[in-house]
């Protein structure tokens, strides 16, 4: 994180931009009649690892391209270190990108690729040599500088693409699904390595992915993107425990999204019926007394199962319809009285414990903090 490695260019809060490396202010981008990005406000903090998470076609890549300068916003502005750069072309922006397909230059060697950005900035050749060498060491490719890119494996190409971008010491590094072409093992390794490199350099990373696991592993904060809007931006555990919308609840981790009929709202507590004989209690902050319906998110592992209702507050009965054994845990499908279903997962804590079987009758209970209101009407 210090300047000793020759990279962190004082990116941590040194340029008087109220702690934000980059900002989108009310940015809208349309392609014909399609609105790809819809009035997005995004503040990227200095030195953070921010992930834009969303399904394909949600606009996350367009957001990245607005940051890199390959797209110009129709409305709003893009701010880099306090300056409006909305109309600054990519080659004059102090950000660099790692492309999904790596986009290495096939006519250059590994060194040629990594040094390209420095040559374009007319850095003198002795410095280029040292910086290229440092960058290759950082991504564990020292000694391969003379290779042609066609002689490298997928993982090595990925590292060259990363080295080529960070060698320029950008204020912000943009990564467009860079791990999607790698196999599962390698991807896991690269996730950890990316995080390590980011922490070591202190460069702000903006990472685009549709893979929630990737997002959870690496990010300081995650922005959940859907239909051109940012639905929620927060740390991974905040989004997991307190999803702001049904989409966020469903996209990050698994969630039961259940509709509940509001029975009472009192003293910040709310009671709602989610099925016949199934009434749940939860925090009702912000729920109006005349509210009729709520949409609740309940994580499968937060549903507590028991043989009897003894000693359980607000437990409701159900029957196990299906059990899928997953090794470390089992996924259960529970049918409540009245026909609505719930997914629950039970940790495989001990072989001695009795496991649930199809057809078993169970009592379900959920702690009131584990029920999150994601929509109300």
């Amino acid at each position: 994180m210090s300047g000793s490695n020759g990279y962190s260019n004082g990116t941590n809060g040194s340029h008087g931009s109220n702690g934000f490396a980059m900002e989108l202010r009310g940015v809208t981008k349309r392609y014909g009649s399609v609105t790809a990005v819809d009035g997005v406000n995004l503040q990227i903090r200095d030195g953070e690892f921010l992930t834009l998470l969303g399904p394909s076609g949600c606009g996350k890549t367009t957001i990245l391209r607005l940051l890199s300068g390959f797209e110009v916003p129709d409305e709003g502005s893009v701010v880099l270190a306090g300056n409006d750069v909305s109309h600054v072309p990519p080659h004059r922006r102090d950000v660099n990108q790692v492309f999904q397909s790596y986009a290495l230059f096939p006519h250059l060697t590994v060194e040629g690729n990594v040094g390209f950005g420095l040559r374009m900035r007319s850095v003198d050749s002795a410095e280029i040599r040292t910086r290229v060498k440092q960058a290759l060491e950082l991504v564990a490719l020292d000694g391969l500088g003379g290779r042609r890119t066609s002689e490298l494996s997928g993982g090595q190409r990925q590292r060259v693409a990363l080295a080529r971008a960070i060698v320029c010491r950008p204020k912000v590094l943009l990564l467009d699904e860079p791990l999607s072409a790698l196999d599962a093992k390698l991807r896991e390794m690269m996730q950890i390595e990316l995080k390590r490199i980011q922490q070591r350099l202190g460069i702000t990373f903006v990472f685009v992915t549709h893979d929630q696991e990737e997002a959870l592993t690496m990010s300081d904060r995650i922005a959940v993107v859907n239909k051109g809007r940012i639905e929620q931006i927060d740390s991974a555990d905040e989004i997991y425990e307190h999803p702001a919308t049904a989409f966020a609840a469903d996209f990050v981790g698994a969630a039961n999204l259940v509709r509940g009929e509001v029975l009472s709202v009192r003293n910040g507590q709310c009671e709602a019926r989610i099925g016949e004989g199934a009434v749940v209690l939860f925090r009702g902050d912000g729920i109006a007394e005349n509210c009729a319906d709520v949409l609740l998110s309940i994580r499968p592992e937060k549903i507590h199962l028991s043989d009897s209702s003894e000693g359980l507050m607000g437990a409701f009965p159900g029957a196990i319809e299906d059990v899928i054994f997953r090794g470390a845990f089992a996924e259960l499908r529970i049918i409540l009285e009245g026909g609505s279903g719930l997914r629950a997962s039970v940790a495989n804590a001990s072989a001695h414990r009795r496991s649930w079987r199809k057809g078993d009758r169970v009592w379900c209970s959920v702690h009131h903090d584990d029920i999150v209101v994601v929509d109300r009407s």
Partner: protein
Amino acid sequence: MSTISITASGGSQARRAPGLMGWLLLMPMVLWLAAFVVIPTLILLVYSFCERGSFGEVVYSFTWENYVRALDWRYLKILLMSVWYAALTTAFCIVIGYPVAWFIARADVRLRSKLLLLIMLPFWISFLLRTYAWISLLKAEGVVSAFLQSASLITEPLSILYTPTAVIIGLVYAYLPFMILPIYSSAEKLDESVIEASQDLGAGAIRTFFKVILPLTWPGVSAGVLLVFVPAIGMFAITDLMGGARVPMVGNVIQAQFGAARNWPFGAALGICFLIIFVAVYALLRERESKA
């Protein structure tokens, strides 16, 4: 460094020796090359050391005479002029053809095939007819001249027909498609994200072109150079028709030796010299390519 195994797709595959079936499949090509390239070239080589008989027949003997004469300044000058004209033609073809090829390669897929058809359309009409069309365009009382005069852009009738300018116009016109097509094929393969990567790394449009786009489309340019330069040197029909035999190129001289002058051995020697130049140009291009 040497222990890292190459697992990447697209790495070089090990070459296998062709089996019996492979050789059989190659036979037509081998026979074709032998009959129409290797044997004629050998005959040419043998003739080039022979003498001309008094009635224009080939007298078998051994002499360097023809080569000495080929290197005579009179012929050398024509050869050098031919190289110069062909080089100019090639240069114009690159300058005009590259943007066209680039535009087609980056156009919408449906538009692309239509544009390619337009490039190839002239081949449907006889080459001679098209050359005559150019003559009627360029001649002093031709369409272009009349138009320029009526627009008061020139006062005298156009006088470029039967000059080197006309020959070069004719050559560029004839060979332009052979430059456009190979450049198109390599431009079409160029990955758009590589261009974006270059811009992202700080290169503006001009530097992106010279540092990334040109090197990556160089195979197309160099194929185009071969397809234009080599036949342009040897071209005699256009020089005859549009140069009015006042702009002799080496093709005309060789044609004359085998035709009117009936001096096959000397024609053969000129042909061999000519071949050596081609091989040199080819080697030069290959060298440049392997360096890039």
